[in-house]
C-alpha cells in the first residue's frame, strides 16, 4: 500500500505514481496521482462516505465507475467556477482541484437533513400528493422547494468559453471498447472518414479492466497499436472525454467534448465543445452497464457494482476495501473476485444466487481460498457510515452475518441502448441475458459488442469488425483487413434473473439517486400506477440526473413480477436526449453576451454618438431614441426635438427602413396583388402609400411604393418588416404566381437614409445643392427623384411621416455620414436638430399616422382604419376575400380614432381601456389607447386608439381609466395637410 493513500496498490493501473496531485474534498486535503479520477483518488484515500442521498439524506459512497454513478455527485470548483452535481467518476484529477459533497449540512458526516431518514417510513412515494393538501400546496411549496435539489446553482456569471463545431463523416463509432476499436480500425484501413468517440479519457473500454490476448499481444499493447494505426490514418478523428449524448433524425448526432478543467479554463482553455455530427453510418459500441442487486441496505457506502470494483483495481491500482464479499447471479462478478484476490484483498465469499455455479470458476475460487455460497443471497447489511457486515442466506436458508467493508454486486449487464432508442430503434427483451437488446433499427446504424448483448471480448471484436464491414460495403469502400482474433475465451454460463431479494429489514433501493425503493414500486402497483410512465412519475424513479441508468430495468422487472406481466410487455419508459447531463452553456456556445444577438449599427452611427444620442435596440438596430443635452431628461429632449421639426428642421436617420426593388414586365400586376390598394395606376416618378394584408385580411405592413419606371418599383416597408416582407413577396411569387415575370431584390442595407423634415427643409436642401428642381409644383409631396444631393448619387422620396415637408434621401450606405454632415452644416443657421425615434413617434401621433403593430394588431383590417374604399378595387389582392366575410363587415368592430382628453394636460396612458358601464353596473372594455404623447406644438395631450364602431363614434365623450376624453379624428395637427404639401 502506498504512502498516504492507504487503499492504493504498490503497482499496476494507468496512474503515474511519480506524479502526485493534491486536491481538496469537503475542505480536507488529499493526494492522488496523475491518471486518477476524483472517484479513484477518494477511494485510494479511504473516503467511503462521500455524499448524502436526495430524499432521505442517507450516507452514500461510490457505486460505479463512470457515467452510471448515481451516488457521489459533487459540487466541483469554487466561486464563479462552481458546477453542481458532477459525477466524481467523470472528474479527472488535477492539481488544486476542489470539490465538496452535495445535499448535506453542516457536513457529510453530521448531516442535519439525515432526520428525513428517521421519518422515511412516512415519506414513501406520493407522500407530497397525499399530505400537502390542506390548506393548499402553495402553503408548503416554499419549504419543499428549498429542501429539493442536490448541489447549489452558481450565482456568478460563468466565465468560461464554450464552443460548438459541425462535422461530417462516413462512419461514426461510439465507444472504444474491443467492438468499437475493431470497427474503427477496419474503417480507417479502408479509407473511410471515421470519427471515434469515447466518453472516458482512455480508449479501451472493458479492456482497461479485463485481460485478453488479441492478435497475439496483450490487450494494452493491442489498444496502443490500434491507436497508432488510427493516428497514422488520414481523415480519422478520435475524441476522448467525449460523450455521444443525442441521436436525432437522419443520423445527426450530438457529442459533448470535455475540453478543459477549471484550472485550464482559468488559463484560457475552452470548457466544453459541442459537436453536431452528420454521419453516413453509425456503429454503436456503447458497451453495457452493471445492474445493481436489490436487497435491504444495498445503498450503504461500500456496496459497489462488481465491474466498477474490478475497474478501480485494474485501471487505478485502488482496492475499494480490505475485506470483500461478492454477490452475483452471473459469471461476470467472479472476475472481480479474482481481481481482488490477485491484488491481495481478502475475499471472504462469493454468494451466487444460482444453485449450480460454473465449475471452472468454482475451482478457481478454491485456488484462491474463497468460499462459494451457491444458491445464496445477501439479505441485509450493517454499518452506520460505511459497510461493516452483510447478512448472508445460504442455499439451505441459514442466515449469518459476515464482516466485510466491501460488497461487490452484479445483477447482470444492461446493454447501453440509450442512443439506439433515441434513434428510433425498437428494443426486445432477451430472456437469456435478462436484458433489453436492440431490435429493429430505424436509421443507418448498427449496435455491436456488449451494446448488442455480446459480452465476450472475442464476440465483441468480431461483431465490431463485421458491422464495419457491412457499413463500408454500403459506402462502396473495399475492406482490406482481417478481423482481430482473441485467444480462446470461455463462454459465460446463463445468469439467474434476480430482481428483488426479499426477507431483509429496511429499504432495498432501486433508484439510488432519487431514493426509490422496492417498496415504493410495490406501493405504486397497489395504487394502480402500473404503466411504466406512471410508475416513473409517481415514484420519480429514473427521473434523477442519472435518468435511471442503473435502476430502470430492475424497476420494470419488479413491476412486471408484481403485476404478472412479462418484462417485454411491461415495456420501458422513453429514452430521451441527452444521454448524460450537459451544461446549459454548452448549448449556448459562443452565442452569449455581445454575441448572443449582434446588434446592427446604422451607417451614421458614429455621428449619433457625437450628438450625444441615447441608444436603444429597435428590432435589432441600435438607434437613437433621443439626443439629450447635458442635464436634459429624455422626455424633455423628445419635446424639444419634436418642436424643432415643427418650427424649423429636424434630421433623422431612417436607414433600417425596408427597401425592396421589384422589377420586371409584371411588376405592376404583382404589386396590385400584394397591396390592398392599386399600384399599377401610379405614374413614373410618383409615390403611393399602401397597405399589405395577409390572407386573413389583417394588415401586416404599410409603407410607400415609388414607381421608378414602368417596370421598376421600389417598395418601402417598415423597419421591422424589411426581411419579413421581402420573404413574403418571394413566397407569393414562387409558390402562387410563378408565371409572373418579376424579380424581387431586397436592398435595405445597401442604402442609408437621412430624412430632412420641417418648414426649413427645402431651403437647407437647396443649400447643399441638388441636380433637380425642388420647387413644390415640380417636386411635390408624394413624388420621387433620382439625382445628386450634395454631389452624392441619391434617390429622394418626398414623403412625410411628420406632417412637415420631408425629403427621405437614400444614398449608398457608405455615403451616409457625409450626407449627414453636409445637411447638418447647411442647416446650422436654421437651428437644424437631430431627432430620435421618440420624437419621431410623437410627430406621427400628432398627425394621426398609423404605426403598424402599435396601433394595429393581428386582427386589424383596412376596413378598421378607414380604408373601406379598397373594396371598390376591381382586381383581386391578397386578403381581399377575407374582407368580405361577415365578421369583417360588422359595423361594431374596433376602429381607429383619435382621443382628446378633456383635461389638455393629460397624456392618456397607452394600453388604458375605454370603459363602459352597463345597466347592471358591470364594466367592460369598449376600446383602448394605442399611442399617446404630449404635443408641444398644440400644448395638449394627443392620443390614438381603437374603439368599437370606429369613426361612427366621433364626438362621443368616453371614460378612459380615470380620465374623460372625446373621440376625435386621428389627425390632431394640421388635419388638412397644408404643411406637408408646402
Amino acid at each position, binding site marked *: 500500500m502506498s504512502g498516504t493513500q492507504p487503499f492504493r496498490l504498490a503497482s499496476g493501473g494507468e496512474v503515474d505514481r511519480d506524479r502526485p496531485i493534491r486536491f481538496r474534498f469537503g475542505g480536507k486535503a488529499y493526494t492522488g496521482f496523475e491518471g486518477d479520477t476524483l472517484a479513484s483518488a477518494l477511494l485510494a484515500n479511504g473516503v467511503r462516505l462521500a455524499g448524502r442521498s436526495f430524499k432521505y439524506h442517507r450516507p452514500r459512497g461510490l457505486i460505479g465507475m463512470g457515467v452510471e454513478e448515481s451516488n457521489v455527485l459533487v459540487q466541483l470548483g469554487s466561486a464563479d467556477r462552481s458546477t453542481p452535481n458532477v459525477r466524481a467518476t467523470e472528474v479527472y484529477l488535477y492539481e488544486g482541484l476542489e470539490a465538496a459533497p452535495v445535499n448535506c449540512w453542516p457536513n457529510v458526516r453530521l448531516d442535519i437533513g439525515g432526520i428525513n431518514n428517521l421519518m422515511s417510513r412516512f415519506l414513501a412515494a406520493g407522500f407530497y400528493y397525499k399530505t400537502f393538501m390542506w390548506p393548499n400546496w402553495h402553503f408548503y411549496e416554499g419549504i419543499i422547494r428549498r429542501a429539493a435539489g442536490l448541489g447549489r446553482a452558481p450565482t456568478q456569471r460563468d466565465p468560461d468559453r464554450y464552443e460548438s463545431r459541425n462535422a461530417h463523416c462516413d462512419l461514426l463509432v461510439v465507444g472504444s471498447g474491443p467492438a468499437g476499436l475493431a470497427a474503427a480500425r477496419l474503417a480507417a484501413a479502408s479509407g473511410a472518414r471515421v470519427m471515434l468517440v469515447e466518453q472516458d479519457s482512455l480508449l479501451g473500454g472493458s479492456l482497461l479492466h479485463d485481460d485478453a490476448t488479441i492478435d497475439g499481444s496483450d490487450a494494452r499493447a493491442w489498444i496502443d497499436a490500434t491507436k497508432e494505426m488510427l493516428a497514422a490514418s488520414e481523415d480519422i478523428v478520435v475524441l476522448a472525454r467525449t460523450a455521444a449524448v443525442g441521436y436525432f*433524425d437522419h443520423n*445527426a448526432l450530438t457529442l459533448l467534448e470535455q475540453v478543459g478543467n477549471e484550472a485550464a479554463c482559468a488559463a484560457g482553455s475552452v470548457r466544453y465543445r459541442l459537436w453536431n455530427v452528420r454521419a453516413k453510418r453509425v456503429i454503436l459500441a456503447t458497451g453495457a452497464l452493471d445492474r445493481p442487486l436489490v436487497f435491504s441496505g444495498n445503498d450503504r457506502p461500500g456496496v459497489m457494482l462488481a465491474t466498477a470494483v474490478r475497474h478501480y483495481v485494474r485501471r487505478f491500482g485502488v482496492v475499494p476495501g480490505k475485506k470483500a464479499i461478492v454477490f452475483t447471479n452471473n459469471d461476470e462478478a467472479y472476475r472481480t473476485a479474482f481481481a481482488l484476490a490477485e491484488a491481495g484483498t481478502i475475499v471472504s465469499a462469493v454468494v451466487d444466487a444460482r444453485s449450480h455455479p460454473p465449475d471452472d470458476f468454482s475451482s478457481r475460487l478454491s485456488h484462491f481460498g474463497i468460499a462459494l455460497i451457491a444458491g445464496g443471497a445477501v439479505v441485509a447489511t450493517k454499518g452506520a457510515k460505511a459497510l461493516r457486515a452483510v447478512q448472508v442466506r445460504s442455499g439451505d436458508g441459514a442466515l449469518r452475518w459476515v464482516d466485510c467493508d466491501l460488497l461487490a454486486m452484479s445483477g447482470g449487464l444492461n446493454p447501453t441502448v440509450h442512443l439506439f432508442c433515441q434513434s428510433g430503434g425498437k428494443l426486445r427483451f432477451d430472456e437469456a441475458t435478462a436484458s433489453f437488446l436492440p431490435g429493429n433499427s430505424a436509421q443507418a446504424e448498427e449496435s455491436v459488442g456488449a451494446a448488442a448483448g455480446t459480452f465476450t471480448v472475442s464476440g465483441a471484436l468480431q461483431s465490431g469488425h463485421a458491422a464495419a464491414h457491412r457499413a463500408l460495403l454500403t459506402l462502396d469502400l473495399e475492406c482490406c483487413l482481417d478481423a482481430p482474433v482473441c485467444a480462446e475465451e470461455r463462454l459465460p454460463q446463463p445468469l439467474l434473473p434476480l430482481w428483488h431479494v426479499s426477507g431483509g429489514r429496511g429499504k432495498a433501493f432501486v433508484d439510488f439517486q432519487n431514493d426509490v425503493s422496492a417498496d415504493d414500486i410495490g406501493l405504486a402497483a397497489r395504487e394502480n400506477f402500473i404503466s411504466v410512465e406512471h410508475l416513473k412519475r409517481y415514484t420519480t424513479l429514473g427521473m434523477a440526473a442519472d435518468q435511471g441508468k442503473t435502476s430502470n430495468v430492475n424497476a420494470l422487472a419488479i413491476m412486471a413480477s408484481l403485476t404478472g406481466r412479462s418484462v417485454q410487455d411491461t415495456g420501458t419508459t422513453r429514452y430521451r436526449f441527452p444521454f448524460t447531463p450537459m451544461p446549459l452553456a454548452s448549448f449556448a456556445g459562443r452565442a452569449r453576451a455581445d454575441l448572443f444577438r449582434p446588434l446592427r449599427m446604422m451607417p451614421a452611427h458614429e455621428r449619433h454618438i457625437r450628438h450625444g444620442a441615447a441608444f436603444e435596440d429597435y428590432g435589432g438596430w441600435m438607434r437613437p431614441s433621443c439626443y439629450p443635452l447635458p442635464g436634459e431628461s429624455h422626455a424633455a429632449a423628445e419635446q424639444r426635438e419634436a418642436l424643432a421639426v415643427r418650427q424649423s428642421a429636424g434630421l433623422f436617420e431612417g436607414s433600417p427602413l425596408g427597401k425592396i426593388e421589384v422589377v420586371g414586365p409584371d411588376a405592376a400586376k404583382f404589386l396590385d396583388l400584394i397591396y390592398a390598394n392599386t399600384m399599377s395606376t401610379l405614374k413614373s416618378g410618383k409615390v403611393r402609400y399602401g397597405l399589405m394584408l395577409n390572407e386573413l385580411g389583417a394588415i401586416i405592413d404599410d409603407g410607400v411604393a415609388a414607381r421608378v419606371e414602368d417596370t421598376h418599383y421600389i417598395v418601402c416597408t417598415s423597419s421591422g418588416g424589411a426581411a419579413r416582407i421581402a*420573404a413574403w413577396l418571394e413566397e407569393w411569387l414562387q*409558390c402562387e404566381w410563378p408565371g409572373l415575370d418579376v424579380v424581387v431584390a431586397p436592398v435595405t442595407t445597401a442604402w442609408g437614409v437621412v430624412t430632412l423634415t420641417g418648414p426649413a427643409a427645402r431651403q437647407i436642401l437647396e443649400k447643399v445643392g441638388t441636380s433637380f428642381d425642388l420647387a413644390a409644383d415640380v417636386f411635390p409631396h408624394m413624388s420621387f427623384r433620382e439625382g445628386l444631393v450634395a454631389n452624392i448619387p441619391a434617390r429622394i422620396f418626398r414623403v412625410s411621416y411628420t406632417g412637415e415637408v420631408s425629403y427621405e434621401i437614400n444614398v449608398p450606405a457608405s455615403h451616409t455620414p457625409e450626407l449627414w454632415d453636409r445637411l447638418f452644416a447647411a442647416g446650422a443657421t436654421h437651428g437644424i436638430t437631430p431627432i430620435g425615434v421618440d420624437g419621431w413617434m410623437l410627430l406621427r401621433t400628432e398627425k394621426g399616422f398609423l404605426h403598424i403593430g402599435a396601433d394595429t394588431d393581428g386582427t386589424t383590417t383596412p376596413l378598421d382604419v378607414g380604408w373601406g374604399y379598397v373594396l371598390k378595387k376591381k382586381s*383581386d389582392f391578397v386578403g381581399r376575400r377575407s374582407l368580405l366575410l361577415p365578421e369583417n363587415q360588422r359595423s361594431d368592430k374596433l376602429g381607429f380614432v383619435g382621443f382628446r382628453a378633456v383635461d389638455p394636460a393629460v397624456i392618456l396612458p397607452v394600453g388604458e381601456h375605454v370603459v363602459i358601464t352597463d345597466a347592471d353596473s358591470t364594466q367592460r372594455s369598449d376600446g383602448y389607447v394605442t399611442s399617446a404623447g404630449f404635443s408641444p406644438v398644440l400644448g395638449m395631450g394627443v392620443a390614438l386608439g381603437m374603439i368599437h364602431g370606429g369613426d361612427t363614434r366621433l364626438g362621443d365623450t368616453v371614460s378612459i381609466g380615470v380620465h374623460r376624453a372625446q373621440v376625435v379624428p386621428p389627425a390632431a395637427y394640421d388635419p388638412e395637410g397644408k404643411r406637408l404639401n408646402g
Partner: protein
Amino acid sequence: MLLIECPWCGPRDEVEFQCGGQSHIERPGPPEAVSDERWGAYLFERINPKGLHRERWLHAFGCRRWFNIARNTATHEIIAVYRMGESSPDAPSGDGAVP
C-alpha cells in the same frame, strides 16, 4: 434534424430551412365567386397525416427558393423532393401509408 436535399443546393441541415406547411393548396378565386365556406376551408383546413405528407419548404439560409418535400411524418423519411409547380410523386407504398 432532417437532412434535406435542396433541389438547387444539395443536401443541407434542417436548420437552414423553414417549413411552410401543407403544399398543393389551391387558392380559390375570383373572390366574389368563392363561398365563405370554401374560403374558410382554404384558410384553415389542413391535413395532419401519420405517414406521407407533402409540404412546401423554403431554403431560407441558402438559395431562398421554395420547393416541395414528400415525407413520412412517422419515420421522418424524405420520400421525394421536387420543385414548385411539379406534380407530386406517389409514395412507394401508397398514399398516407405507414410502413
